């Protein structure tokens, strides 16, 4: 996570972007090309699902942090209830995030899900139920990440707004106080 680089025309974190795209592309490519080379459904299933799971982990733990400064997870608190937690950078750092990085992040997430949906439609048309299983798993992983990060981003924006209004109101009251103390 290197905000010291000038966010200009280039990606600020090329290695992270590469890995962000790598596993998604590998899962899709393997799934599509495997029909040509591999006979065994088991191998196709296991390899595709493992690549999709690796991609899920990379996006959630690494590229989400680095490319867009967001993170989400779930905890169970003392009362035994499930709590979704979100974390984001403060406004200055968020403003400094490389635009290309975040563009790549979000667009590859959406395109990945769209690609799996298209492949799913093909499988359904061909009545290949076991391939629909593979696609269901991969699709659910992509959608989980999309939902998680979207909520995290909305939450971050709300935090910024709340922070801003609170800052304004506290400044206002402190200004009032200092005005009265002068008087």
């Amino acid at each position, binding site marked *: *996570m*290197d*905000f*010291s680089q000038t966010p200009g025309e280039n990606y600020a974190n090329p*290695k*992270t972007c590469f*890995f962000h795209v790598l596993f998604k592309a590998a899962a899709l490519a393997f799934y599509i090309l495997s029909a040509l080379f591999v006979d*065994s*459904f*088991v191998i196709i*299933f*296991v390899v595709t*699902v493992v690549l999709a*799971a690796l991609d*899920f*982990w990379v996006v*959630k*733990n*690494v590229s989400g*942090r*680095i490319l867009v*400064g967001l*993170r989400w*997870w*779930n*905890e*169970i*608190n*003392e*009362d*035994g*209830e*499930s*709590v*979704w*937690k*979100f*974390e*984001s*950078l*403060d*406004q*200055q*750092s968020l403003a400094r995030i490389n635009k290309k990085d975040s563009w790549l992040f979000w667009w590859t997430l959406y395109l990945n899900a769209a690609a799996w949906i298209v492949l799913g439609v093909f499988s359904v048309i061909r009545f290949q139920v*076991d391939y629909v*299983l593979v696609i*269901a*798993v991969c699709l*659910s*992983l992509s959608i*989980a990440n999309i*939902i998680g990060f979207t*909520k995290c981003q909305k*939450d*971050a924006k*709300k*935090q*910024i707004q709340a*922070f801003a209004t609170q*800052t304004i109101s506290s400044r206002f009251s402190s200004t009032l106080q200092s005005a009265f103390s002068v008087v």
Partner: protein
Amino acid sequence: MSHSDTIPLHSSSQSDIDEIENLINASVQSGPATVQPARPPSPPRIPVSSSPFLQSNLPPPTTAAAKLPPLPSSSAPPSVLPATVPGPAPPPANSAGSNNFAASGFGPAPNTLTEPVWDTVKRDLSRIVSNLKLVVFPNPFREDPGKALRDWDLWGPFFFIVFLGLVLSWSASVKKSEVFAVAFALLAAGAVILTLNVLLLGGHIIFFQSLSLLGYCLFPLDVGALICMLQDNVILKIVVVCVTLAWSSWAAYPFMSSAVNPRRKALALYPVFLMYVSVGFLIIAID
């Protein structure tokens, strides 16, 4: 402008994150967190919103801002959803949330890409091992389901389900692909349905925690299937499957039974037992 850059706005809500930070940072080699010249010197983080998100039947808490609508758990996501938790859940003995690392909002910033990845991997692996030990082996926390799988994860169940499917597929001499697909779908759908069963009986469990538990309880059956694959004696197979089946049921029992009304215990436990018995039959019958 942002004068409270250096001051966390809500120190109370920071404590959980601070603990997680400390745990994360404590496992990192000391280098990275201090070598951040471009970063602001203090943790400029926005207060974390902890939105109480209920998947049980408890009445909604009155804390402010249920800021999120609940995720559509009713849409029954396929159970193989490895939702890795990036940081370990705060340990029960809450250490003071002193933030001794001036990192930016989330943990160790990497110098290279591999450094934090390895640490995250190690942390996740150790969580899998500890969850496994908690669920499957005797330990003092078994009576309290809230503690048992506090930091649930779905990687362990994922590995075990895939492994069981693979072993069954290898053992089969014909129709290997169907065997694998059926085993996987049966286990995944079975876990989801069993969880829904408990929820519909009015029990208090958390969806993903229960999925995680049912997945971890497959570990004895994995071991049994592996042994059965290597041995051909039918009697031995039956004995091994019975032993591992009993072990799996014993592992799942406390959690499931304490989640429901005592009068409905059998209704919640019987389907679990039934599923494990059917997996056991699958193991014996495959040749």
